[in-house]
């Protein structure tokens, strides 16, 4: 259902959309890319997390903050 590759693709598309909305120059992203980079801030990540939660019906932050830095680390938190 929510496979890792699918989640990676979702995250990449959403981060690129967030960057466009902020008027940032386009940047290529892959699963190793660091999320907080090139103008993407913690509020952008907050939105991304809400969308991932809606999409997967999972809340990995239920019991507190879990560190993540890259696209793949974030995808891993929601993969099933």
């Amino acid at each position, binding site marked *: 259902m929510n496979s890792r590759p699918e989640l990676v693709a979702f995250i990449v598309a959403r981060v690129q959309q967030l960057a466009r*909305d902020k*008027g940032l120059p386009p940047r290529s992203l892959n699963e190793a890319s660091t999320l907080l980079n090139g103008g993407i801030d913690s*509020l952008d990540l907050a939105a991304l997390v*809400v969308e991932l939660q809606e999409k997967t019906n999972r809340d990995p932050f239920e019991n507190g903050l879990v560190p993540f830095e890259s696209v793949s680390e974030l995808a891993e938190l929601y993969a099933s």
Partner: protein
Amino acid sequence: MPPSSLLTDAFRAAITRILLVNGEKSYSGADLLTRFEKVSQALAGHSGSCAICASSEPEDVLTSLCLPAEIGVSVLFVPEYLSREVPALAETVGASAVIRSGAVRLIERIGETRGPGDEVLLLTSGTSAKPKVVRHKWQTLFARVRVSKSEDEKIWLLTYLPTSFAGIQVLLTAAVAANTVVRASQVHRETLAIGARQGITHLSCTPTFLRSLIAAGAHEAMLPRLRQVTLGGEIADQRTLDAARSHFPNARISHIYAATETGALFSVSDGLAGFPKSWLHDGIEDVRLKVVDDVLHVSSPRAMIAYAGAGNDRISGWIDTGDLVRVIEDRVLFLGRRDRRINVGGSKTLPEEVERAILEVPGVAEAIVTGIPSPLSGQMVLAEVVPAEPGDTEELRERIFAHIRGCLANHQIPRVLRFRTQAPLSPSGKKSTIAQSLS
């Protein structure tokens, strides 16, 4: 003090004239009198008690409004969408009867409580909270409603829920002057057709309703007899006032400030948003105003008695309206509702401010901004946008963000923006702001 037969006298003065048009049904003064008499006969001996009008139909609301003054029965108005609350509300107010579709059902055992039977009880519109029962004296509610001396016929378009404070104001104002009220449809195109066919002269609605009516094609040529547009229930911002002026150049445009708890407070007709700063000093007519911690407080002789269940002592002094204001030069401007504030990672933002910024973008018909719970930032800002015309939303999206990046702080900028075809309206005609999740 208004005469107790104010409404029934108006019905008698318009025996053959149509006073109310509700869809396919229309009611003359005689029809409304008959309806009222049927209800009042069923309630014989109930003087001092309370009845619930559990109907959103304006004919039920109008005839039930006669009860306190004519037969000494207080009445609580409950819209149909809250029907399931009727048993609980009946307990709360000690109701002895329920009125629905012109018929009366008596309630056993409840209704032991007897009072003066001179109250009109209303539910708060509750865009973000559970509705509360607000008690008004019948006399106070009617205090500012005057029998019009002018001869020219007025035709009102009823856009508000008939059971709401605003809906009742429109019904009363029109009825006591024996003017016609035409109920708007749920569908804007139909409303425009009704308005054109009936030749409406007076339109009273929320700014959101007006914007969507304009988006549906409303303009002067379609409603040539329109001579008064009254905005209320939400902030009337300068853009909406200007849009009203340009679409209806021959109408007087005003915005009123009123709430279920405070009653009608004041009306502004100079075409500018907000109200004159001098009113904070001098008051306006018999209403006094002050700002405490950026929130407008008011004191009015026409305010409610109290919330039901809060005792019989009339609230006295100042009422906290929950409306955030800012004084800019000689004007007091409304910023938004305190209870709609969004907390993004500790920074507060007002959805109304974000909505106004988005509405400045050409091609945007409506914007609804809400706070969504977020595990990382407390809340995040979600914007839903209704385009003025179907078309390329990607291009519109780019223009929206390019504009708001220039006028909003980083934490105010929506991180999720979605397009939808229509603004969700609450039953009271305000923007529905109870979006708690993304889906």
